């Protein structure tokens, strides 16, 4: 099963239950292994959780729910699609998905980076938040389903819409609904009705362009795109209009 070579471990996960697999990963990582290839992954949950080291996991197959949940440090590369809950409450580390991801990508993430090459499901980036020097980043290459950036409280969410046809709009509705922190950089067209009432729209200033370029460059490098072609097109900045959107909610 596990073969050792220059501190790279290969694990064939076919038929291995997630508890066994994750226990094995803990063992391998504690031995100082820096890179692990996981083959034949079919739905094992919580991969990358509780490793707490800057180890690199390369996954071939379809990892299960809560990939990188509560993750602190590792870098995960998925050759395939991710399911629901990817990067759930992640603190630091990186997840790179060569495919699409399911619902609630980056739920409540406080730090780290997630790059998704294609689309994401419902509620991507929901309640991402930032704290002190931690600032999560979620970059989505394709488009998103509804409630993108819902309750967003911090961090950077970038939606590139690279798979949209000429003139095609993003279809996500309720984008940034309840947003009260962080920022969304959005490439491609959206109508006003698609935005949450708490969201304002503006253009990027110089400094923001610089930040955007940094993450688009990273994205392009991961997935072999030309960053200039991506950045050529206009971006919108979606920002929270109020830090406390519900001030007038209560009578007393």
């Amino acid at each position, binding site marked *: 099963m596990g073969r050792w070579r220059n501190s790279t471990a290969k694990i064939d996960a076919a038929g291995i239950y997630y508890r066994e697999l994750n226990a094995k990963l803990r063992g391998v990582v504690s031995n100082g292994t820096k890179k692990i290839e996981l083959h034949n992954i079919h739905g094992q949950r919580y991969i990358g959780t509780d490793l707490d080291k800057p180890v690199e996991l390369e996954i071939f197959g379809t990892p299960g729910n809560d990939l990188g949940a509560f993750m602190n440090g590792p870098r995960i590369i998925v050759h395939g699609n991710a399911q629901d809950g990817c990067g759930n409450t992640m603190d630091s580390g990186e997840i790179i998905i060569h495919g699409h991801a399911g619902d609630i990508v980056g739920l409540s993430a406080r730090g780290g980076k997630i790059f998704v090459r294609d689309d994401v499901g419902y509620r991507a980036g929901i309640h991402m938040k930032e704290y002190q020097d931690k600032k999560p980043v979620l970059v989505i290459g394709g488009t998103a389903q509804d409630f993108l950036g819902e309750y967003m409280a911090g961090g950077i969410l970038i939606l590139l819409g690279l798979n949209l046809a000429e003139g095609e709009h993003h279809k996500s509705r309720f984008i940034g609904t309840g947003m009260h922190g962080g920022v969304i950089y959005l490439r491609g067209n959206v109508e006003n009705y698609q935005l949450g009432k708490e969201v304002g729209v503006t253009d990027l200033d110089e400094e923001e362009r610089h930040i955007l370029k940094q993450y688009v460059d990273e994205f392009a490098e991961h997935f072999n795109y030309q960053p200039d072609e991506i950045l050529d097109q206009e971006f919108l900045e979606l920002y929270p209009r109020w830090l406390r*959107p519900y001030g007038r909610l209560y009578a007393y």
Partner: protein
Amino acid sequence: MKTYLTPKFLVQRDPERCIQCQVCVNQCTFDTHYYDVEDDEVRSHDENCIGCLRCVLFCPTRALTIRQNHLDYRDNYNWRPEVIEDIVKQAETGGVLLTGMGNDKGQRIYWDHLVLNASQVTNPSIDPLREPMELTTYLGRKPDRIELDSESSTLKTELAPQVSLEVPVMFAAMSYGAVSLNVHESLARAATEMGTLWNTGEGGLHSKLYKYGNNTIVQVASGRFGVHAEYLDVARVIEIKIGQGAKPGIGGHLPGEKVSSEVSLTRMIPQGTDALSPAPQHDIYSIEDLAQLIYALKEATNYSKPISVKIAAVHNSAAIASGMVRAGADIIVLDGLRGSTGAAPKIIRDNVGIPIEMALASVDSRLRQEGIRNQASVVVSGGIRNSGDVAKAIALGADAVYIGTAALIALGCHVCQQCHTGKCAWGICTTDLRLTKRVNPDIGARRLTNLLRGWSIELKDILGGLGVNALESLRGNRLHLRGVGLTDTELDILGVRMAGS
């Protein structure tokens, strides 16, 4: 004859605070406060005070306190002070006890014995602030099914007229004459702004308010005041009033002194004459007659608007409601025991009719048993106090509710129960032009809009907690209710289970 009644209230004026400004004298409509010129002092006739609290709220130095004056009768559960004093009043006058507002007696308020559910673990509650939460309600007759054209898949079914409500709370019928034009205007503007409906009551619609017709329910009642072609045409819904919860089976009487020139114009009767609303509608002595009137109104408006029929909730409401639906009513309104009024004989108000919760539960169940629940919307009224009552009414099966008293309280009413006197110090239930200006329609509309806004946010909170995002998923969903402190029979009629079961 010397009266054996003592003042109900005592007026306490703090001499250190009172600056003899006479605001209280000007505000009081019951001649409680007066200015003694010789002594240069404001004084009170306590026996005139009815406890409307207008003076207290308007006194610039907060010098006034009004206290109830409880006469210390010997304790007697049967012969309580109110009972004794009512007898005294009748012994001194030989009249019927008249009162305003709704039943103030202690019959069980079932809303307070019903509690709502919430989601935990097995399904998520939905956040109403961030995610869509739909309160939109359509009133009107619906078919059991729709039909599509088999080839083009286009809709073949044509629905009867439907009316949309953005919040399932409407303003109950209160007639011009009973309440002032400013009150009507406040209601009309708030209903329009909030996407709901207000109801003219049976006193016609002032021409100034025709522009709010799209949010107006006009009433056709036994007196047929102000009913004419334009009145029917301008309305969104026409309501036939058979009865009201405060006085089932009893007619009405707007005294001539309240029939001012504007009221006269709107009611289309001579100024100064009494406006009598007979107890029955004299073209409805039976259920087939109701059908005849319903279809007369449908013909008169070319089947363009729903016809509502309002009854007081009485013992056999379920059977009556079934007949009303079969007679062609598109909306049926049940007004319960605690429904309010501008004037009613006290003995009727407090003793006739049944609680709205029971009437609603039995009507909704009966219409479902008979498979005709889709054919009419059910609206309830009579004592709806807050959004919790609204949610419980919806869960028992109501499509929407009417609020009357709650709306008047929003406008300033302090429930002093003197509506029948025409001297409303808050300027609500009066046509005295010196008083009606106390309700400013700009402010009145804002107060009512605020109330509905608050309730609608609360309703969304309740729905979200239940894990649903559309009101129709609560409507008739009695599994989301539980009873507390109710007997098996009560639970059975309500179709609700005991809390904990």
